């Protein structure tokens, strides 16, 4: 009788152990499921934050006094780049060599068919302005800006404001 009771107790302990193992496994699986989703969300947020920061830096550059249209083309506009200022800046870039901590800045007219690099000589009949060097290195992030200048029309209009949609790209050197 005593032996039977002991066996019964052992069986119960065994049963309890199995239930505990099963419940632990279940919770572990649920935990893993949760962690997977939590971390995938974090990765997405990090990428989005990185993208946002790059875009904000471009906006910051486009709205800085060296690039910004100011009030030259009517009311003050955001993300508006003065073409004349930029071409002038390119000519005097040695003074700004390490100012923005980027390897290059490129402004490319979106609607252009050609890829003519802008210089003081061919301005404004060109398509791409590269501020530091004519060659680009590293990886880039871009955003849309308005590239504005004063244009003369031979027709009755005379001088008018011409704004073109352009892509401003900042290039960073790759870290080895």
């Amino acid at each position: 009788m005593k032996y039977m009771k002991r066996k019964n107790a052992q069986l119960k302990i065994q049963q309890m152990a199995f239930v505990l193992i099963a419940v632990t496994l279940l919770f572990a699986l649920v935990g893993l499921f949760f962690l997977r989703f939590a971390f995938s969300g974090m990765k997405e947020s990090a990428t989005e934050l990185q993208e946002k920061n790059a875009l904000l830096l471009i906006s910051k550059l486009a709205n800085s006094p060296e690039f910004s249209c100011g009030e030259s083309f009517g009311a003050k506009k955001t993300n508006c780049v003065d073409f004349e200022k930029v071409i002038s800046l390119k000519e005097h870039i040695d003074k700004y060599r390490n100012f923005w901590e980027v390897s290059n800045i490129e402004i490319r007219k979106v609607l252009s068919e050609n890829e003519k690099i802008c210089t003081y000589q061919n301005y404004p009949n060109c398509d791409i302005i590269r501020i530091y060097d004519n060659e680009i290195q590293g990886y880039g992030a871009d955003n849309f800006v308005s590239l504005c200048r004063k244009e003369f029309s031979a027709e009755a209009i005379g001088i008018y404001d011409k704004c073109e949609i352009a892509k401003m790209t900042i290039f960073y050197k790759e870290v080895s």
Partner: protein
Amino acid sequence: MKIKTKAQEEMLGFGLIILIVAIIILVFIVLTLKKSPINEIESYKIESFIQSSLKHTTRYQDNFGYLSLRELILNCYNSKNCYGLNQTISEIMEKSWIIEDDLVKGYELGITSDKGVLMLLKKGNLTKNYKGALQDLGVNELKFELRIYR
């Protein structure tokens, strides 16, 4: 009799554990479904694109000079003269958002007002994952909306 009650108690306990675990799993499923990428994420790049394209000087002019895209839209809304609007927007969209690029699967652009849809442009594959932005043009609920599908 006592043995029967114990067995019933154990079954009840096990049932309770299963119920609790099931509730936890359900809560997780609901939370993860809520965070799905179907939600529209506001994009700075699309906002910048809309603002820059609205300022873009088109090749079309009136008596006062060349018109910006914003003025072309307002002209279309006010005088029903929509000449050049569709062509200008299509050209800008095609050059700005290249669908062959892996990052862009398609786009949908709509100009709406209190009178209805002024223009609708759809191209490519409109997936469930998109980023979008909306710009109010400040006249009679005239709105410029763009969605980029990825």
